[in-house]
Protein backbone atom coordinates (compact mmCIF):
# COMPACT_ATOMS: atom_id res chain seq x y z
CA UNK A 1 0.00 0.00 0.00
CA UNK A 2 2.80 2.39 0.94
CA UNK A 3 4.47 1.76 -2.40
CA UNK A 4 1.20 2.34 -4.24
CA UNK A 5 0.77 5.58 -2.32
CA UNK A 6 4.22 6.79 -3.31
CA UNK A 7 3.49 5.98 -6.93
CA UNK A 8 0.28 8.02 -6.82
CA UNK A 9 2.14 10.91 -5.18
CA UNK A 10 4.83 10.86 -7.86
CA UNK A 11 2.26 10.68 -10.66
CA UNK A 12 0.16 13.44 -9.13
CA UNK A 13 3.25 15.62 -8.81
CA UNK A 14 3.62 15.33 -12.57
CA UNK A 15 0.04 16.47 -13.08
CA UNK A 16 -1.83 13.16 -13.20
CA UNK A 17 -5.32 13.95 -11.89
CA UNK A 18 -6.34 10.29 -11.84
CA UNK A 19 -3.52 9.59 -9.40
CA UNK A 20 -4.57 12.60 -7.37
CA UNK A 21 -8.11 11.23 -7.31
CA UNK A 22 -6.73 8.04 -5.76
CA UNK A 23 -5.01 10.13 -3.09
CA UNK A 24 -8.22 12.07 -2.52
CA UNK A 25 -10.17 8.84 -2.23
CA UNK A 26 -7.65 7.47 0.23
CA UNK A 27 -7.49 10.54 2.48
CA UNK A 28 -10.79 12.39 2.11
CA UNK A 29 -12.20 10.87 5.32
CA UNK A 30 -9.26 11.98 7.43
CA UNK A 31 -9.21 15.45 5.94
CA UNK A 32 -12.96 15.83 6.42
CA UNK A 33 -12.67 14.64 10.02
CA UNK A 34 -10.15 17.35 10.85
CA UNK A 35 -12.28 19.98 9.14
CA UNK A 36 -15.58 18.91 10.71
CA UNK A 37 -14.15 18.67 14.21
CA UNK A 38 -12.54 22.07 13.91
CA UNK A 39 -15.44 23.86 12.27
CA UNK A 40 -18.43 21.90 13.62
CA UNK A 41 -20.36 22.66 10.46
CA UNK A 42 -20.89 20.10 7.72
CA UNK A 43 -21.10 22.59 4.87
CA UNK A 44 -18.00 24.47 5.96
CA UNK A 45 -16.18 21.21 6.59
CA UNK A 46 -16.95 20.08 3.04
CA UNK A 47 -15.75 23.39 1.62
CA UNK A 48 -12.63 23.20 3.75
CA UNK A 49 -11.96 19.64 2.59
CA UNK A 50 -12.17 20.71 -1.03
CA UNK A 51 -9.97 23.71 -0.36
CA UNK A 52 -7.40 21.55 1.44
CA UNK A 53 -7.14 19.19 -1.54
CA UNK A 54 -6.90 22.10 -3.98
CA UNK A 55 -4.03 23.52 -1.92
CA UNK A 56 -2.42 20.10 -1.76
CA UNK A 57 -2.62 19.86 -5.57
CA UNK A 58 -1.07 23.29 -5.93
CA UNK A 59 1.71 22.60 -3.43
CA UNK A 60 2.40 19.02 -4.46
CA UNK A 61 5.25 19.86 -6.87
CA UNK A 62 7.11 21.25 -3.85
CA UNK A 63 6.50 18.15 -1.71
CA UNK A 64 9.94 16.64 -1.17
CA UNK A 65 8.93 13.70 0.97
CA UNK A 66 10.74 14.87 4.12
CA UNK A 67 7.63 13.79 6.01
CA UNK A 68 5.04 11.26 4.92
CA UNK A 69 2.38 12.40 2.48
CA UNK A 70 -0.23 11.77 5.15
CA UNK A 71 1.50 14.08 7.65
CA UNK A 72 2.01 16.70 4.98
CA UNK A 73 -1.66 16.57 3.95
CA UNK A 74 -2.78 16.69 7.60
CA UNK A 75 -0.80 19.86 8.06
CA UNK A 76 -2.38 21.47 5.01
CA UNK A 77 -5.83 20.36 6.15
CA UNK A 78 -5.42 21.72 9.68
CA UNK A 79 -4.19 25.04 8.39
CA UNK A 80 -6.98 25.29 5.84
CA UNK A 81 -9.62 24.57 8.47
CA UNK A 82 -7.97 27.02 10.86
CA UNK A 83 -8.05 29.72 8.16
CA UNK A 84 -11.81 29.26 7.88
CA UNK A 85 -12.12 29.08 11.66
CA UNK A 86 -10.34 32.44 11.91
CA UNK A 87 -12.65 33.99 9.32
CA UNK A 88 -15.60 32.71 11.33
CA UNK A 89 -14.09 34.26 14.44
CA UNK A 90 -13.93 37.65 12.74
CA UNK A 91 -17.51 37.23 11.56
CA UNK A 92 -18.61 36.38 15.09
CA UNK A 93 -16.97 39.54 16.36
CA UNK A 94 -18.61 41.61 13.61
CA UNK A 95 -22.14 40.29 14.16
CA UNK A 96 -21.57 39.98 17.91
CA UNK A 97 -22.94 36.48 18.14
CA UNK A 98 -22.68 34.37 21.22
CA UNK A 99 -19.80 31.94 20.65
CA UNK A 100 -21.36 29.23 22.80
CA UNK A 101 -24.14 28.80 20.25
CA UNK A 102 -21.82 28.44 17.30
CA UNK A 103 -21.17 25.30 15.41
CA UNK A 104 -23.56 22.82 16.94
CA UNK A 105 -24.22 19.95 14.59
CA UNK A 106 -27.10 17.62 15.20
CA UNK A 107 -25.46 14.28 14.47
CA UNK A 108 -27.21 11.49 16.32
CA UNK A 109 -25.43 8.85 14.24
CA UNK A 110 -22.08 9.95 15.64
CA UNK A 111 -20.48 8.55 18.77
CA UNK A 112 -21.22 10.42 21.97
CA UNK A 113 -17.79 12.02 22.29
CA UNK A 114 -17.82 13.09 18.65
CA UNK A 115 -21.11 14.90 19.20
CA UNK A 116 -19.80 16.48 22.38
CA UNK A 117 -16.71 17.82 20.58
CA UNK A 118 -18.97 19.51 18.03
CA UNK A 119 -20.91 21.14 20.87
CA UNK A 120 -17.82 22.73 22.39
CA UNK A 121 -17.41 26.52 22.23
CA UNK A 122 -15.52 27.49 19.13
CA UNK A 123 -12.13 28.33 20.64
CA UNK A 124 -12.12 25.49 23.16
CA UNK A 125 -13.04 23.09 20.36
CA UNK A 126 -10.27 24.31 18.06
CA UNK A 127 -7.67 24.04 20.80
CA UNK A 128 -8.90 20.62 21.87
CA UNK A 129 -8.89 19.22 18.31
CA UNK A 130 -5.46 20.62 17.50
CA UNK A 131 -3.88 19.51 20.78
CA UNK A 132 -5.58 16.23 21.59
CA UNK A 133 -6.29 14.90 18.11
CA UNK A 134 -3.79 16.53 15.77
CA UNK A 135 -0.79 16.61 18.08
CA UNK A 136 0.04 20.30 17.96
CA UNK A 137 1.79 21.93 20.93
CA UNK A 138 0.23 24.87 22.77
CA UNK A 139 2.74 27.37 21.40
CA UNK A 140 1.95 26.21 17.85
CA UNK A 141 -1.77 26.40 18.52
CA UNK A 142 -1.34 29.90 19.91
CA UNK A 143 0.36 30.94 16.65
CA UNK A 144 -2.23 29.25 14.48
CA UNK A 145 -5.27 30.64 16.26
CA UNK A 146 -3.81 34.01 17.13
CA UNK A 147 -4.22 33.61 20.87
CA UNK A 148 -1.84 33.55 23.85
CA UNK A 149 -0.22 30.25 24.78
CA UNK A 150 -1.78 30.52 28.25
CA UNK A 151 -5.20 30.89 26.64
CA UNK A 152 -4.59 27.77 24.63
CA UNK A 153 -3.86 25.77 27.78
CA UNK A 154 -6.83 27.24 29.61
CA UNK A 155 -9.17 26.51 26.70
CA UNK A 156 -7.91 22.95 26.52
CA UNK A 157 -8.69 22.32 30.18
CA UNK A 158 -12.05 23.96 29.76
CA UNK A 159 -12.80 21.71 26.79
CA UNK A 160 -11.85 18.58 28.70
CA UNK A 161 -13.99 19.59 31.64
CA UNK A 162 -17.00 20.22 29.43
CA UNK A 163 -16.51 16.96 27.56
CA UNK A 164 -16.24 14.96 30.78
CA UNK A 165 -19.46 16.44 32.08
CA UNK A 166 -21.40 16.16 28.81
CA UNK A 167 -20.40 12.62 28.05
CA UNK A 168 -21.36 11.63 31.56
CA UNK A 169 -24.84 13.17 31.13
CA UNK A 170 -25.89 10.65 28.50
Amino acid at each position, binding site marked *: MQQQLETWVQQAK*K*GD*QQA*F*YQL*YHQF*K*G*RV*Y*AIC*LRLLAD*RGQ*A*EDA*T*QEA*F*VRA*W*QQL*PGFRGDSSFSTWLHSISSRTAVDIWRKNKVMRLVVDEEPEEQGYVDAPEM*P*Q*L*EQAILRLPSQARAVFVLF*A*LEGYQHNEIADLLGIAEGSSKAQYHRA*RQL*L*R*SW*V*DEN
Partner: protein
Amino acid sequence: MKTEQQLDAMISQLAPALEPQRDLWPELSARLEPRQRRGYGAWLGVAAAAVLTLWFWPQQLPLEPQLTQNGAQAGVNATQAPQAQAEMSLLAVSEQLTRQLNEEQTRQLKALQQIPDGFSDWSKQIAIWNKAQAQIELALAYQPDNQKLIQQLQRLQQQQLSYIAKLVETSELT
Protein backbone atom coordinates in the same frame (compact mmCIF):
# COMPACT_ATOMS: atom_id res chain seq x y z
CA MET B 1 -18.65 12.80 35.47
CA LYS B 2 -16.12 10.75 33.54
CA THR B 3 -12.59 10.59 34.86
CA GLU B 4 -9.64 11.98 32.93
CA GLN B 5 -8.54 8.44 32.11
CA GLN B 6 -11.97 7.48 30.83
CA LEU B 7 -12.00 10.58 28.64
CA ASP B 8 -8.54 9.77 27.29
CA ALA B 9 -9.71 6.24 26.50
CA MET B 10 -12.72 7.62 24.59
CA ILE B 11 -10.49 10.08 22.70
CA SER B 12 -8.19 7.28 21.60
CA GLN B 13 -11.19 5.42 20.20
CA LEU B 14 -12.35 8.27 17.98
CA ALA B 15 -12.46 7.32 14.32
CA PRO B 16 -9.51 8.69 12.36
CA ALA B 17 -11.79 9.34 9.38
CA LEU B 18 -15.33 10.63 8.91
CA GLU B 19 -17.09 10.44 5.58
CA PRO B 20 -18.54 13.59 4.04
CA GLN B 21 -22.22 13.26 3.17
CA ARG B 22 -21.81 14.29 -0.45
CA ASP B 23 -19.33 13.56 -3.19
CA LEU B 24 -16.80 16.39 -3.11
CA TRP B 25 -14.72 15.26 -6.07
CA PRO B 26 -16.66 16.76 -9.03
CA GLU B 27 -16.42 20.31 -7.67
CA LEU B 28 -12.93 19.72 -6.43
CA SER B 29 -11.63 18.33 -9.71
CA ALA B 30 -13.07 21.32 -11.57
CA ARG B 31 -10.79 23.52 -9.47
CA LEU B 32 -7.61 21.57 -10.22
CA GLU B 33 -5.65 23.52 -12.77
CA PRO B 34 -3.56 21.49 -15.18
CA ARG B 35 0.04 21.46 -14.07
CA GLN B 36 2.21 23.89 -16.06
CA ARG B 37 4.57 21.61 -17.96
CA ARG B 38 7.75 23.57 -18.52
CA GLY B 39 8.97 20.69 -20.59
CA TYR B 40 11.29 20.46 -23.53
CA GLY B 41 8.58 21.37 -26.01
CA ALA B 42 7.78 24.74 -24.47
CA TRP B 43 11.44 25.47 -23.92
CA LEU B 44 12.31 24.64 -27.51
CA GLY B 45 9.51 26.85 -28.77
CA VAL B 46 10.78 29.81 -26.78
CA ALA B 47 14.37 29.20 -27.85
CA ALA B 48 13.41 28.85 -31.50
CA ALA B 49 11.35 32.03 -31.39
CA ALA B 50 14.19 33.94 -29.74
CA VAL B 51 16.77 32.78 -32.27
CA LEU B 52 14.58 33.47 -35.28
CA THR B 53 13.50 36.88 -33.98
CA LEU B 54 17.09 37.90 -33.48
CA TRP B 55 17.96 36.73 -36.97
CA PHE B 56 15.12 38.40 -38.81
CA TRP B 57 15.07 41.66 -36.89
CA PRO B 58 18.21 43.31 -38.30
CA GLN B 59 17.26 42.31 -41.84
CA GLN B 60 13.91 44.06 -41.58
CA LEU B 61 15.12 47.38 -40.21
CA PRO B 62 13.76 50.17 -42.45
CA LEU B 63 16.40 51.69 -44.67
CA GLU B 64 15.23 55.27 -44.78
CA PRO B 65 18.10 57.70 -45.27
CA GLN B 66 17.56 61.01 -43.53
CA LEU B 67 18.86 64.31 -44.81
CA THR B 68 20.95 66.41 -42.51
CA GLN B 69 22.25 69.96 -42.75
CA ASN B 70 25.55 68.67 -44.22
CA GLY B 71 23.87 67.07 -47.24
CA ALA B 72 22.27 63.86 -48.34
CA GLN B 73 25.37 61.64 -48.44
CA ALA B 74 26.43 62.59 -44.96
CA GLY B 75 22.91 61.85 -43.76
CA VAL B 76 22.98 58.39 -45.30
CA ASN B 77 26.35 57.62 -43.73
CA ALA B 78 25.14 58.88 -40.40
CA THR B 79 22.19 56.46 -40.40
CA GLN B 80 24.08 53.50 -41.85
CA ALA B 81 26.78 53.57 -39.22
CA PRO B 82 24.49 53.06 -36.21
CA GLN B 83 22.53 50.48 -38.19
CA ALA B 84 25.65 48.51 -39.00
CA GLN B 85 26.62 48.78 -35.34
CA ALA B 86 23.19 47.50 -34.33
CA GLU B 87 23.51 44.60 -36.75
CA MET B 88 26.92 43.72 -35.37
CA SER B 89 25.74 43.78 -31.79
CA LEU B 90 22.65 41.76 -32.68
CA LEU B 91 24.87 39.26 -34.45
CA ALA B 92 27.00 38.99 -31.33
CA VAL B 93 23.91 38.55 -29.14
CA SER B 94 22.58 35.95 -31.52
CA GLU B 95 25.84 34.01 -31.49
CA GLN B 96 25.89 34.14 -27.72
CA LEU B 97 22.28 32.91 -27.65
CA THR B 98 23.10 30.12 -30.09
CA ARG B 99 25.96 28.96 -27.89
CA GLN B 100 23.75 28.99 -24.81
CA LEU B 101 21.04 27.21 -26.74
CA ASN B 102 23.44 24.47 -27.79
CA GLU B 103 24.76 24.01 -24.26
CA GLU B 104 21.25 23.88 -22.84
CA GLN B 105 20.10 21.46 -25.55
CA THR B 106 22.95 19.09 -24.80
CA ARG B 107 22.39 19.30 -21.05
CA GLN B 108 18.66 18.62 -21.34
CA LEU B 109 19.08 15.87 -23.90
CA LYS B 110 21.52 14.13 -21.60
CA ALA B 111 18.87 14.32 -18.89
CA LEU B 112 16.43 12.33 -21.04
CA GLN B 113 16.00 9.03 -19.27
CA GLN B 114 15.04 6.99 -22.29
CA ILE B 115 16.31 7.66 -25.79
CA PRO B 116 13.76 6.39 -28.33
CA ASP B 117 14.67 4.04 -31.17
CA GLY B 118 16.21 5.76 -34.15
CA PHE B 119 17.79 8.51 -32.07
CA SER B 120 20.64 6.59 -30.47
CA ASP B 121 23.21 8.70 -32.31
CA TRP B 122 21.60 11.99 -31.30
CA SER B 123 24.79 13.41 -29.81
CA LYS B 124 26.66 12.71 -33.07
CA GLN B 125 23.92 14.39 -35.07
CA ILE B 126 23.93 17.44 -32.83
CA ALA B 127 27.72 17.62 -33.05
CA ILE B 128 27.53 17.64 -36.87
CA TRP B 129 25.03 20.51 -36.81
CA ASN B 130 27.11 22.41 -34.27
CA LYS B 131 30.23 21.99 -36.38
CA ALA B 132 28.46 23.19 -39.52
CA GLN B 133 27.04 26.19 -37.69
CA ALA B 134 30.45 27.05 -36.25
CA GLN B 135 31.93 27.09 -39.76
CA ILE B 136 29.22 29.41 -41.04
CA GLU B 137 29.65 31.67 -38.03
CA LEU B 138 33.36 31.82 -38.77
CA ALA B 139 32.60 32.84 -42.35
CA LEU B 140 30.10 35.41 -41.09
CA ALA B 141 32.80 36.99 -38.98
CA TYR B 142 34.49 37.99 -42.25
CA GLN B 143 31.33 38.65 -44.25
CA PRO B 144 28.69 39.74 -41.73
CA ASP B 145 26.34 41.01 -44.47
CA ASN B 146 26.36 37.82 -46.54
CA GLN B 147 22.67 36.94 -46.79
CA LYS B 148 23.31 33.44 -48.15
CA LEU B 149 25.43 32.57 -45.14
CA ILE B 150 22.82 33.96 -42.77
CA GLN B 151 20.07 31.95 -44.48
CA GLN B 152 22.21 28.83 -44.37
CA LEU B 153 22.77 29.29 -40.66
CA GLN B 154 19.04 29.81 -40.10
CA ARG B 155 18.26 26.60 -41.99
CA LEU B 156 20.74 24.61 -39.94
CA GLN B 157 19.36 25.96 -36.69
CA GLN B 158 15.81 25.20 -37.75
CA GLN B 159 16.80 21.67 -38.75
CA GLN B 160 18.54 21.16 -35.43
CA LEU B 161 15.57 22.46 -33.44
CA SER B 162 13.15 20.30 -35.45
CA TYR B 163 15.32 17.25 -34.85
CA ILE B 164 15.42 17.87 -31.09
CA ALA B 165 11.69 18.59 -30.96
CA LYS B 166 11.04 15.31 -32.76
CA LEU B 167 13.36 13.46 -30.40
CA VAL B 168 11.64 14.92 -27.33
CA GLU B 169 8.18 14.29 -28.74
CA THR B 170 9.03 10.65 -29.50
CA SER B 171 10.63 10.29 -26.07
CA GLU B 172 7.48 11.58 -24.33
CA LEU B 173 5.32 9.15 -26.30
CA THR B 174 7.39 6.11 -25.34
